[in-house]
């Protein structure tokens, strides 16, 4: 059963192998391998600041991971998440700037998230409509659309919404009441993590307990069968991409509300692609997205800390991530016997 099989040991094995690969790399590349290893693997847990930042980094990754999962579940590919995250951040922030001083903090934040959601959902919805009406491959349309969106968002950051006095490539800052409270100062961790985890639980409930979720899963497994059985597959595809785009967007705005307080040029670069990797590790299971995102954030912060404290470049994390991609996509590499027994 999907619920159980998603939890099998395979994903853990992949993570363990990736860590081992990281270890080997650290040993090969560092002059003081022992210190570097400790910095890479253990220092994220060594103090509040590092650990809090690790958690903070996982917040948007959980959301993009969920966004990718829901699209994959119905066998659709949303490759436009990079653009959607960025657009969502801008849309939400613009709403926040307009509402500044007019509404209460909670309502402001709520509105920003909704607006942001709709921005990304619309972007993905366009790809969905192109797919269902005209048969345009959503893989291509979402990617191209996203590339265009990034440039448009850049224009708004540099142009109409730019914070001129600061001289930065960033928008005007949001008022303080439109920001999340910090949870583990001095780190960047903010209460947005509750939002991400709640989103994962809600999405799990949606996929495995509701009628629409059931339809999405069956459509993803065999579209022709679903259509024959009486599922309106076009509708299902539209909604799954729509939700995917929306969720990806909230990743952008949550990061703005929680950490930066403004949209900086290119701040969210990589969130979208990493979301796809996370969905692959989590095998599209919403609840597994949470640990997968944490693992990703752990690698990332480990590499950053190691580059500060030992002489290792941050690229090591990228290589380890690449190893994960490799292992996850090349299922055949791992002998079935390793993980099969967990099914029973």
């Amino acid at each position, binding site marked *: *059963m999907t619920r159980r099989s998603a939890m099998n040991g395979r994903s853990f094995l992949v993570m363990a192998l990736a860590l081992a690969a990281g270890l080997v790399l650290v040993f090969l590349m560092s002059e003081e391998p022992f210190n570097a290893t400790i910095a890479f693997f253990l220092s994220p847990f060594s103090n509040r600041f590092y650990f809090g930042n690790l958690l903070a980094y996982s917040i948007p990754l959980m959301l993009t991971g969920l966004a990718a999962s829901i699209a994959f579940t119905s066998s659709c590919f949303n490759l436009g998440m990079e653009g959607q995250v960025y657009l969502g951040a801008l849309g939400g922030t613009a709403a926040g700037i307009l509402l500044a001083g007019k509404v209460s903090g909670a309502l402001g934040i709520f509105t920003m998230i909704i607006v942001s959601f709709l921005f990304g959902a619309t972007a993905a919805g366009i790809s969905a409509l192109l797919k269902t009406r005209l048969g345009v491959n959503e893989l291509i349309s979402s990617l191209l659309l996203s590339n265009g969106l990034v440039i448009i968002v850049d224009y708004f950051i540099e142009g109409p919404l730019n914070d001129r006095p600061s001289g930065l490539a960033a928008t005007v800052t949001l008022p303080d009441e439109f920001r999340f409270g910090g949870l583990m100062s001095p780190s960047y961790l903010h209460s947005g993590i509750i939002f991400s985890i709640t989103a994962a639980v809600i999405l799990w409930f949606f996929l495995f307990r509701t009628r629409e979720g*059931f339809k999405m899963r069956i459509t993803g*497994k065999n579209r022709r*069968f679903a*259509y*024959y059985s*009486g599922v309106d597959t076009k509708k299902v595809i539209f909604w799954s991409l729509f939700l995917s785009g929306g969720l990806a967007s909230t990743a952008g705005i949550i990061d703005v509300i929680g950490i930066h307080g403004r949209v900086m040029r290119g701040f969210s670069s990589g969130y979208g692609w990493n979301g796809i990797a996370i969905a692959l590790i989590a095998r599209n299971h919403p609840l597994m997205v949470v640990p997968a995102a944490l693992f990703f954030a752990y690698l990332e912060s480990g590499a950053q800390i190691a580059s500060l404290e030992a002489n290792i470049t941050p690229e090591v994390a990228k290589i380890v991530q690449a190893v994960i991609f490799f292992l996850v996509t090349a299922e055949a590499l791992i002998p079935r016997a390793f993980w099969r027994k967990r099914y*029973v």
Partner: protein
Amino acid sequence: MGQILYHLGAKLSKPVLEITDLKKTYSISGTRALDGATLAFYSGEIASLLGENGAGKTTLMKAIVGIEKPDSGSMLLQGEKYIPLGPYSALEKGIGMVPQSLKVISQLTVFENLLLGFRSNWPGRTIKHFKEKIEEVMQRYRLQLPLDMKVELLSTGQRQKLEVLRILQNSPGIIIFDEPTTLISETDKGELFETFRRFKAEGKTVLFITHKLYEAYSVSDRIYVIRSGVIIGRYKRDETSVEELHDLVSGEETRPDRVQLSSAGEVVLRVEELGIEGSVEGEEAVKETSFEVRRGELLAISGVPGNGQEELLEGIFGMRKILSGRVLLDGKDVTNVPPRNLRKLGLAALPSDRDGAASCKNATIKDNLVIHKVADGGWIVDDRGLDAFARSLLSDYGVLYGSIFDPASSLSGGNLQKLLLSREISSEPRALLLGEPSRGLDVKHLHILRTVLARIKEEMAVVVFTADLEEALKVGDRIIVMSEGRIVFNAVNRPGLSKHMIGKLILKATGERQ
């Protein structure tokens, strides 16, 4: 070297392959597929393994080629211990298997597929060398195929030939055929058996797995009957009769008979001048087809596979574009209406494309059963109610399964068939279209199917699409035969109507048209 040994074996009549006390229990579902099977095969013989759905035939064969690892038991190949590691290693030792569902790559050409199947794909050899070699094999067994044609353009019968060639080019001594006759036409069947005999003449061993009594009886030298994972009968052909085998296979005496209702009710489904799009855009697979079905009347649509029957079903059920004409359900125009709405209006169908459309093998058994019920209704799925529904349906139709949360792929072909039938019938439609309902069913289940059909036709209009004309004659109250997308025969099934007669009538009719 292998060849010599085989011939030697034939003279001494020592078995080529000896299987002793093979046992296998599937860990996921706990099904005991093999329970101490012991049997032997000899060179220069055609041996059949006969049994019901889920009797363990396929598992036994998978054990022989190493796809499944038996829990215990041993195998001796030419007197030596034989432990296969997989189809590739089995082929190296001279055992090849033609699988039940054909595994060819349809985007590649015939030649490319064959090249992939070469056991020893020596680097440095030219394309020409391989072509010559393949052509030589084709000559020898008279299995001709156009080498440069894309496989997707081949008929099912030709694809099977391709599978056979893929094994043959590696010149194995033992060739296993797993249910080879389910998908192909009568003519192709004849050719296949001819190929069997050619192997036999060469001193090779043919292992023919089937649930069809007559086929096993007519072609084999030796017949093994398997039931519940045990070999319960070992015969040389002359030692037994079809009747004896029949009783043994099914475990009970059955008498196939058609229940005819005295009166047919109102017209439920009406099809007028239908033209339906084929797999290639713009091509018409069904042309100017009209018929009507009444409640209480079972319409059987037959004909050689690939003459528009499949497209007709899919077209009526909204899965394929109708180019001209219309479909009326209870007098209401439902042309090009999607399945979703047709189901609400009381039409149900089982497409003959089992894996692609009728079932979802990687979803759970439960999901396969309850999908209709989930397609509409409130927000939250009533999981407990659906579990109960699935379980009761499965037990009503005697489907053998492990758990309803196992994937549908864990079911044997016949059991999956029963599951799908139960699902469609349980929706209590006004009209039911069934594509190949008897495919892959054994004697006992065929009988059950016929009883079920006789029962449900009292309440609904039933259309059975079957390539097997004999079967059509057994169940149908009215028979339609299609050829090249048109109806070439349409008449009430009166006693005395035979396959032979229909053939003559069709010939006469087509002759007149030309």
